[in-house]
């Protein structure tokens, strides 16, 4: 809309103000019936109404066309006036399908839902937020997604033209540079000045976001660009062609293969290596070719727990024995080889001094410096830049070429010992899980065993798999979707919305989603329960309710011990009781079926079975279980 248009008639904003004034006048008429009837307000639907102007094709319609071209199924948002036109385009022009608008109660929930969804679906969700207060709310969840290497397509509404901002709140909700809030932990951002600019930048952002390392991106969407009529006659949407993931250099992989074949005790550590079943299968082929034990850190399901080469729970002893360690997209290589005492910060070297390290990672492409999620620097004997998942197949072929008949026979001889070690690890874990079996509150091992017993007949996914270690230790995982890892940056508040997002992705794939939900995490933004209920997202939420921020209890105790002061006070500021939170009531208040609190371990199985029935009917359900603290 040109300035002349504004001067010459009633623009859309003035019209809305006028309509509001007319509504207010009508209200007064009702209140004062005895007074003379005022002149009837013009019918806003009457195109002949003098001065009336309409915008049948706003810029936001074209923006939606662009978003649709990217095959986005959902857009999560807490509603906000800075993207009201795009919101309206989604629900009317787009028919609220592909993308469907997901009503969220907090921007942090919107982004965390998109985060969990992307890991389960293998494709991104879009998020809308105010460019100021909305992004401020969203920021921690964006950082989690950044640290977890997960794509999120974010749009931030913003009023760029100060001369057109409505007085008051619209100024408070506008910024010069919305992306400045999150630029340290998004891969790319832009604030387009035209619709064509929007189309090109959004497609570019999507393309960059999906190239490993995958990360969130942000496009600021100007209010006027959304709301004004489409002027450009020759708008076009660029074709999306995703870049092939960067495979590691062939010569470097040959060198890695030589080192792996020559090693006596190699170990593979896989962190954020796999992003699909293809990655899991490729890692199995490499490990079997080398007869090499694998440690899966748990941030992704990289390697089946049922496979005898999975010795994840023996990580320390494997690292201690290793003469060569292959690290696949490991975020903290130094931490794999060392420990650091607390509070004395004494370095505890775990690995042998002479151990060789090969890293295959895209860490060198994470070119941000403010936030320190890149961890302590660890030199490698062979550092290879490349996407680990994509590089596994050529590495395996290179290993096969290096394996002589004699060496292959020697490796095959290791199989029995590795099978025995795997069996011994499992036996030890079962024995440990039995400890406190009848305890009340329920042990986390018992909780995990009971939950597995409930879902074992289903095609399942544990949406957040790092809050309790027992499922990773006990449950038989074989598919990438079985366990999706955690938040990335340990920013509290991810678990509940992350699980809801994963459950949404799994809903149409026939996968039952379950999650072990920490109580402190759910207290951050419990409104996501309503979102799950409203959008009929089936999710079995089992509370890991230890009534506290328990990790912090230990920190307080450590400080008290260090200062030689009273250790009993560690509960102050760390525990959540007096009153105890009733999560079943909270869930019921948000429209979610719920039971609990349950402290008796023998009551758990039947409650989980009842909840499963609800979830299989297509709705979320919550069982509040009072647990041991760890």
């Amino acid at each position: 809309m040109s300035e002349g248009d504004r001067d010459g008639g009633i623009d859309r904003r003035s019209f809305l103000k006028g309509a509001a004034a007319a509504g207010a006048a009508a209200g007064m008429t009702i209140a004062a019936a005895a007074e003379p009837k005022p002149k009837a307000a013009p019918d806003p639907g009457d195109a002949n109404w003098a001065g009336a102007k309409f915008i049948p094709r706003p810029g936001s319609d074209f923006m939606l066309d662009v978003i649709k071209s990217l095959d986005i199924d959902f857009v999560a948002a807490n509603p906000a006036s800075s993207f009201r036109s795009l919101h309206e385009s989604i629900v009317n022009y787009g028919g609220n399908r592909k993308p469907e608008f997901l009503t969220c109660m907090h921007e942090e929930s919107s982004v965390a839902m998109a985060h969990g969804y992307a890991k389960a679906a293998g494709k991104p969700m879009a998020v809308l937020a105010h460019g100021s207060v909305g992004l401020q709310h969203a920021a921690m969840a964006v950082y989690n997604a950044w640290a977890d290497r997960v794509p999120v397509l974010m749009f931030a509404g913003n009023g760029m033209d100060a001369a057109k901002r409505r007085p008051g709140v619209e100024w408070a909700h506008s910024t010069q540079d919305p992306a400045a809030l999150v630029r340290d932990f998004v891969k790319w951002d832009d604030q387009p000045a035209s619709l064509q600019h929007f189309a090109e930048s959004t497609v570019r952002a999507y393309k960059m976001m999906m190239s490993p390392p995958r990360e969130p991106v942000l496009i600021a969407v100007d209010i006027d660009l959304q709301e004004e009529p489409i002027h450009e006659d020759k708008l076009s949407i660029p074709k999306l062609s995703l870049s092939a993931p960067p495979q590691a250099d062939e010569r470097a992989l040959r060198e890695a293969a030589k080192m792996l074949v020559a090693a006596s005790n190699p170990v593979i550590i896989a962190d954020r290596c796999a992003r699909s079943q293809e990655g899991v299968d490729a890692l199995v082929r490499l490990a079997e070719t080398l007869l090499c034990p694998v440690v899966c850190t748990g941030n992704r399901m990289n390697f089946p727990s049922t496979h005898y080469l999975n010795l994840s729970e023996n990580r320390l002893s494997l690292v201690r024995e290793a003469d060569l360690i292959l690290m696949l997209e490991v975020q903290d290589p130094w931490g794999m080889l060392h420990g650091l005492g607390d509070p004395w910060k004494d370095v505890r070297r775990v690995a042998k001094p002479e151990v060789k390290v090969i890293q295959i990672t895209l860490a060198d492409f994470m070119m941000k410096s403010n936030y320190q999620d890149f961890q302590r620097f660890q030199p490698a004997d062979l550092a290879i830049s490349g996407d680990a998942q994509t590089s596994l197949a050529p590495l395996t072929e290179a290993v096969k070429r290096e394996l002589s008949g004699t060496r292959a026979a020697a490796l095959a001889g290791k199989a029995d010992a590795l099978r025995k070690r795997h069996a011994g690890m499992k036996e030890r874990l079962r024995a440990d899980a039995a400890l406190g079996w009848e305890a009340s509150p329920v042990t986390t091992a018992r909780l995990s065993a009971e939950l597995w017993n409930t879902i074992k007949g289903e095609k399942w996914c544990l949406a957040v798999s790092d809050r309790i270690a027992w499922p990773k230790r006990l449950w038989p995982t074989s598919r990438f979707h079985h366990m999706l890892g955690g938040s990335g940056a340990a920013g509290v508040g991810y678990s509940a919305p992350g699980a809801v997002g994963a459950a949404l992705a799994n809903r149409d794939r026939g996968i039952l989603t379950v999650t072990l939900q920490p109580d402190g995490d759910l207290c951050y933004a419990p409104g996501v329960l309503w979102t799950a209920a409203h959008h009929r997202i089936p999710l079995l939420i089992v509370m890991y309710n230890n009534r506290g921020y328990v990790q912090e209890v230990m920190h307080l105790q450590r400080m008290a011990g260090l200062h030689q002061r009273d250790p009993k006070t560690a509960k102050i500021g760390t525990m959540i009781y007096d009153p105890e939170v009733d999560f079943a009531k909270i869930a019921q208040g948000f429209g979610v079926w719920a039971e609990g609190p349950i402290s008796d371990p023998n009551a758990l199985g039947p409650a989980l079975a009842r909840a499963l029935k609800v979830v299989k009917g297509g709705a979320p359900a919550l069982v509040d279980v009072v647990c041991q603290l760890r």
Partner: protein
Amino acid sequence: MRTLVIFVVAMAGALFAGAAVAQDKAPAGSPERGHKLFVELNCYSCHGTHGQGGGRGSEPKISRPVMPWSAFIGLLRRPPRDMPAYTQKWVGDQDVADIYAYLASLKPAPAARDIPLLGQF
């Protein structure tokens, strides 16, 4: 360096104690009072109410079998790793004896092979 010394001393103490189990008799203690202290002192936050250890692998089990008395009190006074030290000032020897008595009184957990749910894994 200081931590290394503490670690060596504590471990030596523990090993010595382990070698002298037969002579290692704990003072008499009250399991009931020990249970109360176990909760008040937040021991349960890492080690579990039954001393079963934590679910994250960094919180060791401390019951069944309970370690010898001298090792127990030695580790509590001068823990070798990340556990905070509990000094005489706040936890007297009788308090430790009561906690020890509580842990020793706990009913052993069933063996994993006797728990059908665990047989699935």
